[in-house]
């Protein structure tokens, strides 16, 4: 039963991911005074890309071809086991060390894909992404460790299940939550770490790595990054207000499921709007100031952890 729900959840998250990204783009456009495209545009983008021809760099090896599958695969894994829709996810697999390892595996393959074409752009993006990924790893660890300590478990699903509203019981977790937001922005290549909207800016990270990908492979990589954003947004939502789907997750009936899906969509709309507002109101940081940003995330996480440990 757990497995079936995990599969349903993974499909649902993948299905709503293009909508979230379209919604964020629409909100950003409106906030910036543009009209903006329909939030359904990413669906069309995905379908168009799936039909297109693939152009490979003559330098590319087999690694280039495996990258999209592994990157999307690790994201699907996270989308299946984390408690996004149902309360439990696959709880034994949602151990926080495992999750951060799996996500790191995805980043590693993305970086390898960036290097494989042999262009300077890809290498630059790869080097930067790897730096961020290597430094985000401890921040992510301490953040989830904070929540784990608050609820006395190592499984992300139980972290949400045990402490009804974790940060109300353990105020220190508010800091962890802030750290989680910073980590999510870095992991998903959003402002102020990366600019998701441009292809031709010297500050870019994620887009530089996937520059050489085209057609269905690009579609899969885009889908992977959208899904990852959705996973993180929902995770933040669950830590912020777990009660919303505590309500829905009580029983695995059709009504319960419907309510859970409704809660999920509401969360996406609210948090997507918040993300757009955040991205409109702050500027991108210089890459060589990234250590400060990541240090904020890390210190916030450690503070949350230690306060939770002491109190």
């Amino acid at each position, binding site marked *: 039963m757990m497995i079936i729900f995990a599969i349903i959840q*993974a499909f649902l998250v993948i299905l709503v991911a293009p909508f979230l990204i379209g919604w964020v783009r629409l909100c950003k456009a409106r906030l910036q005074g543009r009209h903006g495209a329909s939030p359904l545009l990413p669906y069309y983008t995905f379908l168009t890309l*799936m*039909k297109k*021809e*693939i*152009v*490979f760099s003559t*330098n*590319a*090896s*087999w*690694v280039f071809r495996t990258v*999209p*599958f592994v990157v999307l*695969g690790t994201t699907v*894994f996270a989308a*299946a086991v984390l408690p996004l829709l149902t309360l439990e996810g*696959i709880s*034994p*697999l949602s151990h926080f*060390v*495992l999750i951060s390892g799996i996500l*790191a*595996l995805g980043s*590693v393959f993305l*970086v*390898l894909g960036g*290097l*494989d*074409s*042999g*262009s*300077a*752009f890809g*290498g*630059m993006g*790869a*080097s930067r992404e*790897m*730096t961020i*990924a*290597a430094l*985000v*790893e*401890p921040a992510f*660890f301490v953040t989830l*460790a904070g929540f784990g300590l608050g609820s*006395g478990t*190592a499984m992300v699903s139980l972290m949400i299940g045990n402490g009804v509203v974790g940060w109300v019981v353990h105020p220190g977790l508010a800091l962890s939550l802030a750290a989680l937001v910073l980590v999510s922005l870095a992991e998903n290549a959003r402002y102020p770490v990366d600019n998701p909207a441009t292809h031709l800016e010297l500050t870019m990270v994620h887009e530089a790595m996937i520059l*050489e990908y085209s*057609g269905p*492979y690009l*579609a899969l990589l885009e889908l992977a990054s959208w899904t990852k954003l959705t996973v993180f947004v929902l995770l933040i939502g669950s830590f912020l207000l777990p009660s919303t789907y505590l309500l829905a997750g009580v029983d695995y009936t059709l009504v319960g499921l419907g309510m859970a899906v409704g809660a999920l969509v509401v969360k996406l709309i609210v948090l997507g709007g918040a993300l757009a507002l955040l991205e409109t109101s702050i500027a991108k940081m210089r*890459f*060589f100031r*990234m*250590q400060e940003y990541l240090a904020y995330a890390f210190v916030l996480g*450690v503070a949350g952890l*230690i306060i939770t*440990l002491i109190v």
Partner: protein
Amino acid sequence: MIEILPRLFVLSLLGVLASAFLPLIRSRLAEWAAQMVFIMSTLVGALAGFLFLLVGGTPFLGIISFPAVFSTILSIDSLSAAFFTLVCLVSALCGIFGLRYLEDYREKYHLPTLLAGTALFVLGMQGVLLAQTSISFFFFWELMSLSSAFLVMAECSRASIKAALFYLTMTQISGAAILGGLLLIGDGSLSIDFINLSAAADLPVPMLGLAFGLFFFGFGSKAGLVPFHAWLPEAHPQAPSHISALMSGVMLKVALYGFLRFGFVIGPFLPSWVAYVVVGFGLLSALYGVLYALLERDIKRVLAMSSVENMGLLFTMAGVFFLGMYGGNQALAIGSLLALVIHVWAHGLFKAGLFLSAGTIITRTHSHSLEAMGGLAKRMPVFAAFFLVLCLSAAALPPFGTFWGEWMFLSSIWQAILDGMPGSIVLLLIAIIMVCVGGLAIFAMVRLFGISMLGAPRSKEAEAATPAGGIYRFTMAVPALLLVLMGLFAPLIVRMVFGLETVQFVQSGNYFFPPLAGADTNASSPLIVGLALLAAILFCYALRRLWSDVRRERAYHQWDCGQPITPGMEYTATAFSGPIRFFFRSLLRIRKEIVATPMVSTNPWMARRTYSLQVRSIWVEYGYAPMEKLVFWISKQARRLQTGSVQFYMFLLFLALIVSLILAL
């Protein structure tokens, strides 16, 4: 079954010994026979060790004994069997690799000495692991150290001889420290049986502390702990690749074994801050090693620094074991010990595999520099696949063997924190630093793989690289496959090696050691994780196969902005680590120089620029270099004694005699 085991061990040792002397017959056939005997006997050793672990039930097995003199000279228990099997397995792999590698470099090395040296080196390691008395332990230890020093200078180049002498100096200092420790705990006797080591508990605590310090320094410097590590990145890269694999993959583990063997005995009688010292050195080595692993550009130096990192992690695990013991938290102690053994195996396998692959790469590119590689994945696809598995294992990523060791370690720390063990903050700090190191290790390994294998070839040799077949491929495939199997069946292996009720880790009674009940190895099955991950990836693959037209693809050069693009524009290994170098600039010693010389005197903007980057080490600059100066100064002063007159020397001899008589009486 158990009766024939001692014979198998003896057979293995004798075989290795024989292969050390076979090359004395100067003929190709003898060389070949020596290699074959070496491979066979190490395989027999691996089999014997494996069977010993598999059979279980016998915590202790004597192998050679002379009842008249000592009770037992050589013996095996679970701790040494776990190490012995690994040593034999990796030695066999390196022997097989040597069959082809030495053939390719026949002119470069003097084959008979190299073969004999390798055999003696392996014999030394086997002997250290099986030794049951102080004297045999020290004999084999010195055999291992000395023969490996000669192997380092196998190339006979100036650099390799310099590295070997440095190594020899350090290894002799550490050997002296170990000898001192052995004498202290044996109360002046070297013939003490390890069974009776617990008698050492009668010694006063300061004495025990001194012995522990000597052992820690001796074994730690042999294992490459910072700040005693400076010889390691010099010596390991200079040796032939399969010797580097032996040194980095297993010799360092033998040093760790020595530390554990004596630490287990002395540890319980020492104050608990000793554990913090061990952890501190371990974490320092891990952090320092990984930072330099991601800076170095010589492929073998990268691997050597990564060994410093991994030995640091292992010593951290050992330190946390002691923390658990002193804190009375058995679960923590057992968990970190299990993690330690898994990590020993994982590191032994992936590091040996990586050094062997580095050897293969060097036969293709004829350069150690990462900047001369690139594009090899396209030219040697199967090789690259195995190399990728080894690199991902080295980065401790799921679903490979190394990850489960670190995971188990972090989970046991986590459990101890949740249980509210006193000193949780320290445990938390340890875990956080471990994760920081883990993140940087991923960076180092991705850089190693990405720069050497991917992109366009950066040199003519790399461009002309041909696939490495046969033995080269086989010797990488074995560790890679073992790591994948470890990644899938880690709990099973743990249960097999440390069967819960059957095997106690060390013979009970004399060592403080709990049976392994309560070790939680079943939290989440790695097999399920592996299968779930595979299913997710296959799902994505199916998406592409079923949804899009597979045939619609073509090859074209990468995006070049309208100008021809050359490999010189690619990111280099130096550039790749640029951001990390910048972020950690306060911890690292880097001298960067950009010299611009104008090409036309009237226009300063058109200039030829040379960029040089020097990576140095604070330990060498502030530790080793002044020490070297001091030693030279002392020997210069001592030279004043050499007046050249025989009478004066006679007088000195007489004086020395008198002084020693006074001291003795």
